[in-house]
């Protein structure tokens, strides 16, 4: 994986010094809270309901064990002994003191990490496929391109005060495991006539106005990648709406101009920027690529003794096919039944770090579904790995099942939320675990947001739940038919909302209908697409 050189280290160190100075000036009264706010946000520091929250960047979701150990230590040293992995492959700490923030950033810098641009109206952490570098179906490892863009977007002098936040995702396979088309810019690296290039999708997003990004360019040469991104951003920075916060994302600009007109403007800017020498030397991309070569895989057993049924079901659900046939990628579920989706204790983080070192060439990935991956595990090592995970309460066999719920922090933490998300997720996973239906339901993506900002991706859930405020009471709207994958679609609301008990009943009803109506091999989403909304409505409200 990527390692900092003196320059990268110098940049994060400079950032820590800058932030320390900003915090000092804030405390001396030289900066007002309004002036300080965008600065602390660009260093990942939010003010939540009860305390400051610090969001630490995990670029393209890749970590080594030293870094994961530090994340665990920070949880113990500065927080209440846990952290929360997010849908953008980051981690956030919910109980931070302002006066500790600069010290935490300094600790992070010692392991080549930072909280740069994890918030604010700037280019955020670049996300990617959590199986990058391991998946059997990728054209190429997408992470070098994400790293190139990380450097380009960090402290960008022109794009630090954009109309609104800006999220970029890079993948390199037909399968989309990163919700690529629901980003402000989604990039897919493809191969065409033996040449690698980048497809650009611009203007996707969730939030209150969910949109699927249209393609604006089907092939950008790799030695023009940064220049094309710069053109996309410049058009947005100049013409994105600034009169209304809720219409300021690039999706609104692309929608209002039309994809064709936006593309025309980008192409014009691109032609101009090509003359300006914006692109880093191609040798830089080649240098970055050398950090992402395969670890020394060795041939070994391609199967494993599966007589323990608990182990067998974990292997079936939580491992993913690897490009080397003696290995798999193993998913560590952070969704124990009745637990808080995405939370891990400091101790669990250090354990995952040790397991990564022992079983996965020192590599760890964070998934947008708020789980953790050991990307390169020898099939022969699976029983030993599983035994340790199981022992530590990290062995839940529920990847992509109804228990693998994405949930935002909701009203338990967030000042924007209208309703709680976490208790709902806990109750749903308990209920389906108890009824034993989880396995029968197969792949079923359930996502919960505690407000219209959609941090819990409810628009992209096979089943989505949105918490709203109805006359001072928490109310939950149910939606069906969303997907963040290559079959991307936006969920539709079923009808009137429910109270907390009611929405859990409603989830049970729609899943029962699916079990009764499905044909061989159909997932929930397939049955929904075949039958349409009507029978589900009938089951809910009829």
């Amino acid at each position: 994986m990527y390692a900092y050189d003196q320059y990268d280290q110098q940049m994060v160190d400079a950032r820590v010094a800058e932030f320390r100075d900003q915090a000092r000036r804030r405390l001396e009264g030289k900066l007002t809270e309004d002036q300080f706010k965008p600065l602390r946000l660009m260093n990942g520091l939010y003010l939540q309901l009860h305390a400051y929250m610090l969001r630490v960047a995990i670029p393209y979701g890749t970590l080594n064990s030293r870094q994961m150990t530090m994340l665990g230590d920070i949880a113990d040293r500065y927080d209440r002994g846990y952290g929360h992995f997010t849908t953008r492959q980051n981690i956030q700490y919910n109980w931070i003191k302002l006066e500790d923030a600069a010290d935490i950033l300094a600790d992070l810098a010692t392991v080549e990490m930072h909280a740069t641009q994890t918030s604010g109206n700037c280019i955020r952490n670049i996300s990617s496929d959590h199986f990058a570098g391991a998946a059997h179906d990728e054209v190429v490892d997408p992470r070098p391109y994400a790293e190139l863009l990380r450097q380009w977007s960090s402290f960008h002098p022109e794009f630090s005060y954009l109309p609104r936040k800006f999220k970029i995702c890079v993948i390199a396979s037909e399968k989309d495991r990163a919700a690529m088309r629901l980003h402000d810019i989604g990039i897919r690296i493809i191969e065409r006539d033996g040449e690698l290039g980048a497809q650009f999708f611009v203007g996707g997003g969730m939030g209150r106005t969910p949109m699927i990004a249209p393609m604006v360019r089907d092939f950008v040469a790799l030695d023009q990648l940064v220049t094309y991104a710069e053109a996309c951003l410049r058009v947005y920075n100049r013409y994105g709406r600034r009169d209304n916060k809720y219409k300021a994302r690039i999706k609104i600009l692309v929608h209002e101009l039309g994809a064709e007109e936006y593309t025309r403007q980008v192409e014009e800017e691109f032609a101009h920027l090509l003359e300006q020498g914006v692109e880093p030397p191609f040798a830089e991309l080649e240098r970055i690529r050398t950090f992402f070569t395969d670890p020394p895989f060795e041939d070994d057993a391609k199967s494993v003794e599966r007589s323990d049924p608990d182990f067998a079901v974990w292997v079936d659900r939580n491992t993913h096919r690897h490009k080397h046939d003696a290995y798999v990628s193993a998913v560590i579920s952070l969704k124990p039944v009745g637990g808080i989706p995405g939370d891990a204790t400091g101790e669990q983080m250090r354990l995952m770090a040790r397991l990564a070192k022992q079983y996965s060439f020192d590599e760890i990935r964070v998934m947008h579904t708020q789980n953790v991956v050991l990307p390169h595990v020898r099939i022969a090592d699976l029983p030993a790995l599983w035994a340790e995970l199981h022992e530590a309460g990290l062995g839940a066999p529920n990847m992509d099942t109804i228990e693998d719920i994405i949930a935002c922090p909701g009203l338990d933490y967030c000042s924007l939320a209208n309703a709680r998300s976490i208790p709902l997720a806990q109750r749903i996973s308990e209920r389906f675990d108890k009824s034993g239906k989880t396995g029968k339901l197969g792949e079923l993506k359930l996502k919960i947001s505690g407000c219209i900002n959609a941090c819990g991706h409810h628009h992209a859930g096979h089943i989505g739940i949105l918490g709203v405020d109805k006359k001072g009471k928490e109310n939950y709207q149910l939606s069906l038919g969303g997907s963040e994958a290559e079959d991307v679609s936006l969920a539709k609301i079923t009808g009137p909302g429910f109270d907390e008990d009611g929405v859990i009943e409603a989830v049970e009803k729609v899943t029962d209908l699916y079990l009764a109506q499905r044909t061989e091999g159909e997932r929930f989403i397939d049955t929904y697409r075949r039958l349409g909304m009507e029978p589900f409505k009938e089951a809910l409200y009829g």
Partner: protein
Amino acid sequence: MVEAGDFGTSPDDVQFRFRDDEPVDHGTVTVDSALEQTNANAVRIEPGDDARLLLPFLDRLALVEINFPAFTDGRGYSAARILREAGYAGELRAVGDVLIDQLSHMRRCGFDSFAPDKRLDEEDAKRAFATWEKVYQHAADTALTGRATIAQRRHGEGA
């Protein structure tokens, strides 16, 4: 019609200036006026203005002010780079809600004078201008001064 000298900042308002030439001694006109007045040599760009409208007249301009009514509105950074990319060599002045923590980015985008609404602490400003010893991206500073980006340094281009 707005005449030259009607508004804008005066040289007295400029707190930091990184040029040796004599500053323009009168005020600025709006972009619209500049397009009509063939003798205007000082113009003020507001966030909603298209800086590219000025490109045919760059030779006659000695001062361009870019106004930041609110520091959170970043359109002025693009306007500045666009002018520098087109070869504008005159004074590029950031005016309005110009604060310490935006100085380094503004400088990188080609601003070479600063007239903040509220005078800034000299020491804090000095530190802010020096925030980034090295830089990742190409911008107006790398284009104009030959300052090498980190990527260029890594591959032996520039110094």
